[in-house]
């Protein structure tokens, strides 16, 4: 780090292309969402274009970074910057989930009991005879307002008891995701010991497990919508359930995609050395993070 001269990259077109792609993406998204009930509105194409441009820009940007790395342009200092950068990015993701977990804890501890008339604040709600008959339970299957604004669910996704444990999808999801964290670690060990075959095989298993997880999650959502009547419209339980698991599922897809790219790089391009593989390491950190979030979800959304 000391003594050598510094390296500064050249000008680059990627950043402004990416900013413009993001602009198209969010303009398209806003306009589409605002016109969901207008079938003639075609701003969804702006959304697709933005997404396509974003994807392409990221593809070429990462390709450039990898090329520079393989050409030996990256100093140890820059490599260290990538390591720090990824760590802080994951911290920001943790805080994103913290907002949704915070919302979950708040409604469970305060909002729902108060709405059901518990405690001093609930007493005030009770006194004006608002939301009569609403009971505080969790998972809460009814809504304070019994009007037809909400579609109530018959059944929640919570722990069904030991008798039905084996037919309960979240348990299988947990097993799948926890094992995938182990397999990605074994792949990492293989790479560190110079065993590329082991790396490829176990990374392949990890990506497969990621796909299985997403498949199971899709099955669970189908079950919720089709059989339980549990939707985004089912009041606060449905809201927190789908937003927490949904964002987690989205992150699983991103993490799985990253790992798949790493697998392709290893299999088709022979990238990564036993001492030099931060691209993979970053993706595996992300994967472990996604796993930890799931453990929290399993505890606080499903079990407790």
């Amino acid at each position, binding site marked *: 780090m000391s003594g050598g001269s510094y390296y500064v990259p050249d000008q680059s077109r990627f950043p402004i292309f990416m900013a413009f792609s993001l602009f198209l993406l*969010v303009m398209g998204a806003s306009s589409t969402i605002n016109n969901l009930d207008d079938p003639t509105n075609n701003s969804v194409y702006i959304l697709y274009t933005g997404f396509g441009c974003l994807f392409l820009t990221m593809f070429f940007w990462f390709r450039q970074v990898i090329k520079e790395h393989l050409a030996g342009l990256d100093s140890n200092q820059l490599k260290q910057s990538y390591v720090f950068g990824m760590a802080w990015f994951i911290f920001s993701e943790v805080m994103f989930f913290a907002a949704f977990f915070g919302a979950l804890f708040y409604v469970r501890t305060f909002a729902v009991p108060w709405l059901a008339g518990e405690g001093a604040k609930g007493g005030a709600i009770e006194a004006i005879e608002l939301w009569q008959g609403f009971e505080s339970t969790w998972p809460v299957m009814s809504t304070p307002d019994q009007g037809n604004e909400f579609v109530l669910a018959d059944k929640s996704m919570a722990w069904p008891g030991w008798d039905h444990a084996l037919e309960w999808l979240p348990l299988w999801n947990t097993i799948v995701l926890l094992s995938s964290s182990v397999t990605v670690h074994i792949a990492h060990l293989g790479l560190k010991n110079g065993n590329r075959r082991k790396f490829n095989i176990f990374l392949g298993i990890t990506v497969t497990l990621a796909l299985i997880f997403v498949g199971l999650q899709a099955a669970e959502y189908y079950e919720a919508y089709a059989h339980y009547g549990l939707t985004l419209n089912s009041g606060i339980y449905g809201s927190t359930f789908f937003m927490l698991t949904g964002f987690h599922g989205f992150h699983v897809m991103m993490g799985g995609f990253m790992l798949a790219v790493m697998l392709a790089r290893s299999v088709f391009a022979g990238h990564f050395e036993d001492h030099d593989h931060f691209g993979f390491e970053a993706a595996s950190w992300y994967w472990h993070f996604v796993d930890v979030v799931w453990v929290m979800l399993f505890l606080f959304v499903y079990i407790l």
Partner: protein
Amino acid sequence: MSAVIENHHDDHHHGPAKGITRWLYTTNHKDIGTLYLWFSFAMFLIGGAMAMVIRAELFSPGMQIVEPEFYNQMITLHGLIMIFGGVMPAFVGLANWLVPMMIGAPDMALPRMNNLSFWILPFAFFILLSSLFMEGGAPNFGWTFYAPLSTTYAPPSVTFFIFSVHIMGASSIMGSINVVVTIMNMRAPGVGLMKMPLFVWSWLITAYLLIAVMPVLAGAVTMMLMDIHFGTSFFNAAGGGDPVLFQHIFWFFGHPEVYIMILPAFGIVSHIIETFSRKPLFGYASMVWAMLSIAILSFVVWAHHMFTVGMPLAAEIFFMWATMLIAVPTGVKVFNWVATMFRGSITFETPMLFACAFVVLFTIGGLSGLMLAIVPADFQYHDTYFVVAHFHYVLVPGAIFSIMAAVYFWIPKWSGNMYDERLGKLHFWLSFIGVNVTFFPQHFIGLAGMPRRYPDYALQFADWNMVSSVGAFLFGFSQLLFLFIVVKTVMGGKKATDQVWEGAKGLEWTVASPAPYHTFSTPPKVD
């Protein structure tokens, strides 16, 4: 690709690229710093124009020049633009310019991402401003966008607002990651943590706060989006949620956010006061610890913005005491600035004038904050002009004065030219008088009970509102003088020496003025 390799060895010798692509494709921290600073200046003038509309409407009682609907859009956009478009990008611009030079780094740690962080902003604010021309008008629910005003009763443009906040947040997070990584990883050998200039320290802490809370804001607007368009009930009591939940999440972001807008100012003012007092800063280590304490406490005080929503008593008392605790490290800082000046051989060039005004006026804002922290008193002050006076005292003569001080202090280093000292002093005095005439009377009308965010008011508030408006016009139009001074300095003027100020210390004053395009090609020696 091959071009990259070939260019590698003479990277450090070539200057900026020619033409517009220099600004579009740049990876240079000075270019990006300049872009940020000009962008924030433009936003400052746009947000300022909106403030002029507000003060013109409030010049006398009754409805004068705008519709109430439009007035609401003005107060909302004024707040959003000044915070996310004015103050924050200005500080990021200063960080871009100064942090690498102060720690002996060649550039920011991740130069391409740095450019991305900037270029998202013009697009984000284009979206936000374009909402003025949309059906139903721009967001009209105040910069704090409380649900259900911002959900059930919001205009359709709220969707665009939500997504523009998303990408602004992405920009802030990337910018902050860049700053943190630069400071952690790019310090020249010998620049230990406790040897870092205070501006660098202040930005390390600020960036940490930003990375911690911008994602929370993203979560809040995402919940809004889902509530508005996809039937969720986060902020809807009828479905088992709670509008107050929005306030908790928002202020969990919002309170660290207000320290994000003042911590870099602490750093700037420390540098300026020690330079013009020609003395080393009093209590460097306590300054660092004070900033760290303020940052940590900022996570446990958010609900002092919500004393009147009906929280349990235990929560009110906890948040009251936690808030008052912040006065201790802040007091340490003010004490240290004054102690630095004590028996110094002080001269009052423009940056020093702004810094001294900062110390006094920020303290006034801090003390009114202390008044607001007292729960029973806040029941009276809440949502009155007293609150408006409080946060404008910490933001205008606090954050914005520090930015102006920084511009006067470092512009000789950036441009190689000295600014016009006479005009600078004139700008200072006009701003100083303008700010106080604008905001001091707002304490009185607030304590007398005038609520904030109304386009009309009762007759007894007429006199002080007129005074306030006159001050606002004075302050507002004085900023055109600031623009003139900056342009004049960039175009030419007396050449600056390398050290620029007699008492200036630090790595950035050892390099040429203007600072070369690539400051350090090898790590400088620091003892």
